[in-house]
């Protein structure tokens, strides 16, 4: 076990200011009803007491839109200029257990295989992730169904809010180096000091309505059975195909590649988040293999519950519950799991 440290919550602004002097710092910022990760600065309101952020922190690694290169076209000539992205160390503070696990899910997609995603990799390497235990898990949370422990949230450094203190514990060497760097602002704490809050969190989570879901059927062997399940014919019917569930999902990483004319004779090619819920996602000149919303709807949930598990031996859903909160017609992965899981 690495050493446990603490800092009184009243002194957190001082810690943030000191971190921000060294590198960019992102934290959950409160703006009216919304809570989202944003760049820390003198005039922001950091809120570590809120539950999960409305949007996920995935855009710190996979920006919503990012330039790949520009092509200058002059007199029939083409010149390719790779985009100059800046990759500098940064800290993201206050990431919940579900979003931490989601980062591991996206790592499997973007860092494994014959090709490694260049920009994603550099952003991941430059990031130091500070997690935060969930003191107030919500009704829509079901991380426990996927065996995540919101009381031991992981990351490079894990933190807990308890009795007007923020407790910090390095989870790896990178985290240790960071704690050393800012040790002059921290006090040493006793290992047992976070035990009560951990126990409290685990108790709360066990009592949540979705903490146990019938996931036994979702195995690679059952893939075709799940795919051909007749319940899809009913489940998808209300889906509007709006794509909200994909944009707010921390493990959805699909993207499109597009062009725009930045200025006369200069084409900017960029990538941007896309959604498998849209008909043109797979549309080809000779037809569309996902012909109706049924196939598109099924794709999103089969990907999380069957295809990703088949490839990486982990679920592609982390139970963050955002799609439960945000779907305009109250469709979500919990309904799918219950329906196909036989409940």
């Amino acid at each position, binding site marked *: 076990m690495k050493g446990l440290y603490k800092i009184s919550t009243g002194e957190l602004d001082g810690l943030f200011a000191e971190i921000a002097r060294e590198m960019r710092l992102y934290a959950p910022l409160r703006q009216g009803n919304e809570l989202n990760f944003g760049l820390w600065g003198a005039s922001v309101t950091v809120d570590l007491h809120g539950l999960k952020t409305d949007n996920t922190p995935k855009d710190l690694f996979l920006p919503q839109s990012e330039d790949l290169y520009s092509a200058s076209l002059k007199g*029939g000539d083409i010149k390719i200029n790779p985009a100059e992205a800046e990759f500098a160390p940064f800290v993201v503070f206050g990431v919940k257990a579900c979003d931490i696990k989601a980062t591991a899910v996206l790592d499997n997609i973007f860092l494994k*295989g014959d090709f490694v995603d*260049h920009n994603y990799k550099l952003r991941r390497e430059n990031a130091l992730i500070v997690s935060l235990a969930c003191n107030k898990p919500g009704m829509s949370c079901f991380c426990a169904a996927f065996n995540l422990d919101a009381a031991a949230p992981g990351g490079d450094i894990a933190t807990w809010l308890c009795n007007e203190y923020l407790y910090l514990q390095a989870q790896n060497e990178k985290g240790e180096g960071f704690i050393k760097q800012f040790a002059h602002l921290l006090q040493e704490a006793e290992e047992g000091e976070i035990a009560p809050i951990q126990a409290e969190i685990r108790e709360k989570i066990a009592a949540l309505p979705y903490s146990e879901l019938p996931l036994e059927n979702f195995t690679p062997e059952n893939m075709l059975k799940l795919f051909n399940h007749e319940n899809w014919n009913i489940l998808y019917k209300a889906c509007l195909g709006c794509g909200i569930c994909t944009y707010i999902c921390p493990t959805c990483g699909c*993207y499109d*590649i597009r062009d725009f004319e930045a200025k006369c004779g200069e084409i900017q090619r960029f*990538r941007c988040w*896309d959604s498998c819920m849209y008909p043109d996602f797979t549309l080809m*000149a000779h037809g569309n293999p996902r012909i109706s919303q049924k196939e598109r709807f099924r*794709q999103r949930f089969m990907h999380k519950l069957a295809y990703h598990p088949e490839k990486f031996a982990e679920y592609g859903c982390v139970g963050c519950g955002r799609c439960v909160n945000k779907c305009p017609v109250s469709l979500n992965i919990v309904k799918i799991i219950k329906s196909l899981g036989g409940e």
Partner: protein
Amino acid sequence: MRDFQIPKVGIITEIFEETPDVKTFRVVDESGAKAFDHMPGQCAMLSVPGVGEAMFSIASSPTNTKFMEFSIKRVGVLTEHIHKLEPGDKLTIRGPYGNFFPVDTELKGKNILFVAGGIALAPVRSVIKYVFDNRADYGYVDILYGARNPEGLVYRKEIEKSWADKPNTNVFLTIDQHDEDWDGHIGFVPDYFKKIGFSTDKLVVMCGPPIMIKFTMALLLEMGFKKEQVYTTLELRMKCGIGKCGRCNIGPKLVCVDGPVFRTDELDNLPDEF
């Protein structure tokens, strides 16, 4: 480490009109050399910046070390634009992407039956030319190719002037309907296939429209072929080509990296969504 989504600039050196809507483009990089090495069945992303980018099979053989060829059917925005390009014009090219036909392993030393329909002869041509350039390494070669009409046969001159004369090689051509300029076989590929009646001592490379694949596959099984003997390619919409953008999946497989070449028995374990 480099970003695999960033292309090279390519130059079109020659263009051949194959059919009313298919042209073959010979492409080199800016230095005049072949843009990259590849294997038969692999693909490349071609793009005209500001117009679009799409995946195309490399229709030339790896044994051709000077240039690559792409046979492109005019079907939409990008392909329409590419069809208007002329020798000397530039586009961008990145690749090679995807897996390839097992020419140096499973196919080596075997008799091979090639079955293709329409533009899908493009990826098959790469294998055929590779086999002819390494003729001693393979057994008998049968090529069965069909199109809607005589003008629809791509590489027709090459097939008749060169392929048909290769040793231990049979070429069978067919068109769908009667045509005044045609004295060869008339009928769909599967029908002709049945008439010829191939023996099962060979591996099969089959590419074409889904309907042709479906019927020919049924015949192959009827004739005693096993799915393990038959290779085909799949086509899904692609963007990144490197297994990241998530667009081209069939179940857990991403066609841009796990395909486009599949042994047909592998497809039984995948959702029917292609």
